[in-house]
């Protein structure tokens, strides 16, 4: 078995985010790391939408990310600390839309190690040096400079090592143009390590240490070190030099402290807390992330607490001495892993879990009634300020980026009966979690729908002048009339446009600078800007059957297959070419390309004829209307469209990008779309790609998407073919079927589509280009853990379990208790006020999804069981479990000893579960009876168990339950489930049970798989084989009777198989007199499974399923990861394919080494050597590398580059999207 790894959707969670002017223009971009890929985002300051410019897979783990700018420069560079043992400096080249590796310096071993730097990065704010640090001991400083040609240079590393020291955080201190300085939070454990009594360990204090890079002496000195009173978690650098007082802010538990070198006193301010918080008041509060905003005149910091509250921090100074820290509650947003404040006034919040947000900072919170807290206010030690959280006041949400991270479970099924299966996912954490339904397709936002007087045939939009930004008219053609609508504030009908309204229209377009043209069956109407109209009438009884129009040219086909060609001359007159062209048969469709910039005409006309051919005809004056090339088709053409695709992004200042090539798209009557490259010189057709779109003939429309051309193809489903990030995408629209469409641009919707569907006119916008899935999200209360699908009713039964949380009941009780305390605490005269306050407190309703849920402390659990209709998003039933009951496993079962078709849901619940070390106060198996349409669960009984019931699976009319390390077989009884059989030989904790036939595959949390057989005669469960590697399994799925795919918590996927000579017909040996050598090594099973495939994904897989993703496609292994990746492992069906991709992968490894310096082969072999899996993600980078390199690789494979990319596309479309 050979597999091919394809990522369908890249990770969506963000681990790091930095902002800067990476493209060198005035625009600010955000660079985010999504674990193992880098993505450049640009928030559009006009629309507030975040667009992705570039995504690159780096095949390494990004551990730290920083942006820096050389003094006096205008462009930001990127420093990446990764697991490659190298420091890498990247530059974004906007013309080519790539990241270029400027420097790569090796300093240590690869891998995420304790003493190899890469974990922390600190930049001198003036861009003169960078410090890269490890968690322990090692720190290296590189000096950055520029050479005579203004290229960035990097010095050899200067060591700042100190052994026996752990580092928590490092920042570059802004010292102006004095020697660069770095501040580190450190702890020296040497004394604690040598002290056997353990006393020193308690006394050891964290220190704040300053390292100075002496640029004159070219070495680093440990300048100053000071023990800290509280344990701090991170540092914020304060602007220095001419901009501020310099120094650092130390964020520690409950306190924020300002420190600086010299005679500056420490300024200390407590972190304010929420008034009347349900949280444990003894629990400390920390800041988890911060963002600095600095202009020439002022600076402030935004710091977020772990509850999500953002505080604006300002410093009061007196002659460069800080006198006061001021804190002001700003707003509350979801807890972030990184925040960026942009110059344009946006705040980008990369959420820890769930969707990411872009906010506009509407107010700086300077002049409102919100109380300001200051370090100067007298407070007793241990006392703090209080504030009341409230809905957003200073921030305005402008865009939301979908993020699936973390995906906790996923199943592929077609519950909505749509013939393309959907992905049902449990996403998120805590009160922000959701159940999401993913469908393949582009999300369509409906801007407007209006009904029309009849059923229209076609629709176009035209601009009044070529230089206008927005369209002026919408022209709708009916069977016998044409309707003209003008676009303004509203869309209304007009009659003075010059268009002929009494006839159907074949096509219309803007012509030249400011004229319009309308083609109708009896002629052509040329409408000049001054409303003069030139008409051309068809000769005799002939009518126009088809036409093609662009900005300067009009071609019409008359009945009988005669082509007439018109071209606009410099005076704006439309002239007929002297000759006409007789075609061998009737023309069924025609297309013209757009006139290329700076040219007079498009040189090619494509004509589809009734004899199943498409011909390219030259429109060059030298050989006008002479045929250039022809292509035979499998069926008659329905529609043609020539577009220019594959052009690079045009840079910010309008500098031209790389030019693309022309593509002829041919929609056939049998529902197939062909895409062919049209040679821009000779007009030859080559490299045809085919895709079946639907059952209806394919109609094609050219539209504009994100500044480049795209094709909207309509069959029984509508598709968008576009070029995005070096790859062709053909994605269905998640929308009802449409009949005719045209591009649309107005002030409200700059890049939209106007389309008709039956008798309605719709204005649509396609925004999330590049997204493979569109998602529907339904919020749930707690972190959803596992779910089962009730197939008959297509309902989901979900267990939601939250650690460190109160149930609704407990929360209510606590509120009442607190309200009572409030009243009791009040004095005589304040009684009235206290009662009011208590009332207000009881009625207060802040949504937990924004303001986060109160933290109850470790060992506190809240759980619910939810019956959800995933199509409607309706919760049918919600069963709330008691406080400290954690629902951990679920299964849908039919018991053999119960009535036929009576289904039961068994939920494994642990009571008083402590995670580390694992302790449990028992557990229960809740058995619920499911009614026929799965809307109601009725509790039948509750079976006590002595350990954590962590896995349940139906097995031959009974259930198998993993209770701690015991595998048990339960049968349905009257008062409880009856234990019938037990196996105690699984070493640690059963996390997953899969059964097939009589074989049972049991996953242990750290000892991989055990193959168990149930022997009915003896009523025994016997382990007959196990795995050779200790995998920490997260999920396993059975591929066939002998083969299991597993994923582990280190991000590996392995396929293991019982080889041919393994038999499950073994006896257990209770007497122990079995031969010693027959017992297996170290108490393992005598028989071992073999490894078929190994692969390191790089993210923790939480679901594995064998499924088909497209109707009529083949099966593949679908996986989802915690970071939000959806990927597939596809089996190769032929040896040739495997051989081809093996070689391609090999060439790509050597020609295109990963961006962050990690070797691809060693990354994919992180824990186990990669075996029998080829990396499609690397192979697909073929499309984005240099043309010359593409050519040399393709030559080595005895193919052309286009053949290689066709193969890449083929294997993708055969299994997935």
């Amino acid at each position: 078995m050979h597999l091919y790894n394809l990522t369908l959707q890249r990770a969506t969670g963000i681990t790091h985010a930095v902002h800067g002017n990476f493209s060198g223009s005035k625009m600010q971009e955000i660079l985010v790391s999504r674990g193992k890929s880098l993505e450049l985002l640009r928030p559009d300051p006009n629309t507030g939408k975040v667009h992705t410019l570039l995504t690159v897979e780096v095949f390494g783990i990004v551990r730290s990310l920083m942006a820096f700018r050389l003094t006096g420069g205008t462009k930001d560079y990127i420093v990446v600390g990764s697991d490659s043992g190298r420091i890498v400096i990247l530059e974004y080249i906007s013309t080519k839309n790539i990241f270029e590796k400027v420097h790569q310096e090796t300093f240590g071993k690869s891998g995420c190690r304790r003493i190899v730097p890469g974990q922390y990065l600190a930049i001198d704010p003036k861009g003169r040096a960078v410090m890269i640090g490890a968690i322990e001991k090692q720190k290296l400083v590189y000096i950055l400079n520029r050479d005579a040609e203004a290229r960035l240079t990097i010095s050899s590393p200067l060591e700042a090592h100190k052994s026996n020291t752990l580092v928590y955080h490092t920042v570059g201190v802004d010292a102006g143009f004095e020697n660069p300085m770095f501040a580190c939070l450190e702890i020296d454990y040497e004394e604690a390590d040598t002290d056997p009594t353990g006393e020193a360990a308690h006394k050891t204090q964290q220190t704040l240490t300053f390292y100075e890079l002496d640029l004159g002496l070219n070495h680093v000195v440990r300048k100053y070190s000071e023990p800290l009173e509280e344990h701090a978690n991170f540092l914020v650098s304060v602007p220095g030099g001419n901009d501020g007082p310099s120094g650092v802010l130390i964020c520690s538990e409950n306190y924020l402290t300002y420190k600086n070198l010299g005679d500056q006193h420490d300024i200390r301010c407590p972190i304010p807390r929420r008034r009347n918080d349900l949280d444990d008041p003894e629990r400390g509060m920390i800041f988890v992330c911060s963002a600095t905003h600095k202009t020439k005149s002022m600076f402030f910091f935004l710091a977020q607490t772990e509850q999500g509250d953002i505080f604006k921090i300002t410093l009061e100074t007196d002659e460069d001495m800080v006198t006061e820290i001021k804190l002001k509650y700003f707003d509350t947003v979801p807890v972030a892993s990184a925040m960026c404040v942009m110059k344009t006034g946006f705040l980008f919040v990369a959420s820890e879990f769930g969707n990411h947000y872009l906010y506009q900072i509407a107010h700086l919170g300077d002049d409102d009634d919100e109380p300001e807290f200051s370090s100067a206010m007298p407070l007793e030690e241990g006392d703090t300020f209080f504030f009341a959280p409230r809905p957003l006041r200073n921030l305005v949400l402008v865009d939301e980026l979908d993020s699936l991270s973390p995906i906790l479970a996923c199943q592929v099924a077609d519950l909505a009966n749509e013939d393309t299966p959907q992905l049902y996912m449990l996403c998120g954490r805590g009160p922000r979690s959701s159940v999401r339904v993913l469908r393949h397709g582009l999300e369509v936002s409906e801007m407007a729908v209006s009904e029309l007087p009849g059923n229209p045939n076609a629709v176009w939009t035209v601009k009044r002048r070529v230089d206008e930004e927005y369209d002026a008219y919408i022209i709708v053609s009916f069977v016998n009339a044409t309707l003209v609508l003008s676009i303004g504030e509203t869309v209304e009908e007009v009659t003075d446009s010059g268009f002929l309204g009494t006839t159907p229209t074949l096509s219309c377009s803007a012509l030249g600078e400011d004229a319009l043209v309308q083609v109708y069956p009896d002629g052509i109407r040329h409408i000049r800007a001054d409303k003069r109209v030139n008409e051309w009438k068809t000769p005799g009884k002939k009518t126009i059957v088809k036409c093609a129009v662009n900005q300067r040219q009009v071609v019409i086909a008359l009945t009988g297959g005669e082509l007439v060609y018109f071209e606009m001359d410099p005076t704006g007159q439309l002239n007929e070419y002297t000759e006409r062209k007789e075609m061998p048969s009737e023309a069924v469709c025609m297309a013209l390309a757009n006139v290329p910039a700076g040219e007079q005409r498009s040189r090619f006309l494509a004509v589809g004829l009734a004899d199943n051919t498409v011909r390219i005809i030259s429109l060059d004056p030298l050989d006008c209307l002479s045929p250039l090339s022809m292509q035979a088709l499998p069926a008659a053409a329905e529609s043609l469209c020539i577009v220019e695709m594959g052009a690079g992004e045009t840079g910010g200042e309008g500098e031209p990008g790389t030019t693309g090539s022309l593509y002829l798209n041919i929609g056939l009557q049998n529902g197939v779309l062909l895409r062919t490259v049209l040679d821009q010189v000779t007009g030859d057709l080559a490299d045809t790609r085919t895709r079946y779109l639907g059952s209806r003939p394919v109609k094609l429309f050219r539209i504009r998407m994100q500044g480049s051309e795209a094709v909207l193809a309509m069959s029984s489903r509508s598709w968008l073919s576009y070029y995005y990030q070096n790859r062709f995408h053909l994605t269905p629209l998640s929308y009802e079927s449409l009949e005719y469409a045209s591009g649309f641009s107005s002030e409200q919707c700059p890049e939209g589509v106007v389309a008709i569907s039956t008798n309605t006119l719709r204005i649509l916008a396609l925004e999330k280009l590049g997204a493979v899935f569109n998602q529907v999200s339904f919020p749930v209360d707690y972190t959803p853990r596992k779910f089962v699908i009730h197939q008959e009713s297509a309902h989901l039964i979900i267990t939601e379990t939250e650690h460190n949380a109160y149930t609704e009941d407990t929360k209510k009780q606590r509120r009442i208790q607190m309200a009572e305390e409030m009243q009791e605490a009040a004095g005589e005269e304040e009684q009235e006020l206290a009662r009011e306050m208590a009332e207000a407190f009881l009625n207060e309703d802040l949504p937990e999804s924004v303001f986060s849920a109160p933290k109850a402390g470790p060992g506190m659990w809240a759980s619910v069981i939810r019956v959800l209709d995933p199509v409607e998003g309706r919760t049918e039933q919600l069963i709330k479990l008691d406080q400290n009951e954690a629902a951990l496993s679920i299964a849908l079962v039919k018991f053999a000893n119960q009535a036929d078709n009576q289904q039961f849901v068994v939920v494994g619940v642990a009571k008083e579960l402590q995670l580390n070390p694992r302790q449990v106060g028992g557990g229960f198996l809740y058995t619920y009876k499911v009614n026929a349409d799965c809307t109601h669960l009725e509790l039948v009984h509750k079976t006590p168990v002595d350990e954590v019931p962590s896995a349940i699976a139906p097995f031959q009319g009974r259930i198998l339950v993993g209770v701690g390390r015991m595998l048990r077989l339960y049968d349905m009884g009257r008062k409880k489930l009856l234990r019938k059989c037990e196996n105690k030989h699984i070493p640690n904790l059963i996390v997953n049970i899969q059964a097939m036939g009589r074989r049972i595959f049991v996953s242990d949390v750290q000892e991989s798989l055990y193959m168990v057989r149930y022997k009915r005669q003896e009523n025994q469960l016997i382990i007959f084989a196990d795995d050779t590697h200790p995998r920490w399994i997260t999920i396993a799925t059975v591929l066939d009777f002998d083969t299991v795919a597993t994923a582990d918590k280190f991000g590996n996927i392995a396929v293991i198989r019982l080889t041919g000579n393994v038999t499950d017909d073994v006896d257990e040996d209770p007497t122990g007199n079995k031969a010693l050598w027959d017992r297996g090594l170290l108490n393992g099973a005598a028989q071992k499974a073999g490894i078929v495939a190994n692969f390191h994904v790089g993210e923790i897989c939480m679901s594995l399923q064998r499924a088909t993703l497209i109707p009529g496609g083949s099966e593949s292994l679908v996986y989802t990861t915690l970071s939000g990746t959806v990927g597939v492992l596809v089996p190769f069906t032929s040896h040739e394919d495997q051989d081809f991709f093996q070689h391609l992968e090999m060439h790509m490894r050597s020609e295109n080494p990963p961006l962050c310096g990690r070797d691809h082969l060693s990354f994919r072999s992180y824990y186990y050597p990669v075996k029998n899996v080829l990396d499609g993600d690397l192979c697909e980078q073929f499309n984005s590398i240099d043309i010359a390199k593409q050519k040399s690789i393709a030559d080595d494979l005895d193919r052309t580059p286009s053949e290689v990319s066709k193969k890449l596309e083929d294997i993708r479309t055969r299994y997935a999207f």
Partner: protein
Amino acid sequence: MVNTPKAYTADRIWCLVFELFVVMSFKRDGDDLNLLRSLKHRRVCELLSSHIPDDEAMLLKNGRLTCMICTHRPIFDTLSMLAIHRKGKKHVSELSKYLLHKRELDTKKLKSEQRRYLCTGLVESMGHRALSGEAQGNKLLITQVAYSSCSKQRLGLQRKPILDIENISKETEIPGVATKNNVFPSASAQVRQYLKGLWKKKPLEKTVEKCRENYGEGWAKSLNNVVDISLPDCPESILEDTATSSRPCSEEDVARKKKADHELKLKMSGWIKNADGKWVQDPDVEFDSDEHEPPKSSD
């Protein structure tokens, strides 16, 4: 090849076979006729070699063979070499030793069984062992306790074994065995008798052939690992039975099947048969509180 005209000489047929061989196997680069010829020769020798029982030689993992009779386990490359060895003097003398030893072992086993019976009153469960063996035949109901004249006698009698201590002194043997033991046939006669019975045993060639056919696939599995996704209410034994025998079931068979079914169901839900053949609850298994008697068969 059914309609092959008579004109085809044996030579021609050999050629055809040979061609077929060459075509079907794989392309050869050189013309190594010598090798092919020797392979053919070896094949013929194998076909003509004398009958070697399955349990007297073993095919090793590396494709060689070893003689299981000789204690020094000589290794042979081919079946013919093994056959030649089996005719040799050394082997014959080893065979006589082997037979003697085997006989002793058999007696020992019988004795130990007898002793155990006397101690516990239980006969070793033959049925259990028979399950996997071929001797199963079409027997439907496999009971824990196989038929034994001794156990029949013992039914109902709950004597303490100690009472019989005088009757079974250490020296006294079981009568039948003892008498036979006294008249031990001579070694050569034994060998002769043994060789006569050899033809009844499964020949080694077949095993070897099968092994070679399925080379790399693991023949063991294809032989005895039938994928069984049986439902819980149709026990394995029946499945096996229906798979092997296609003869129509008599009424008696049906009844027996039902009984077997029922017993399997009881076993699966934790009932075990005690020495008296009564169903008792397994102490390690949970039952409904009112479930004191095993559920009756459905009819």
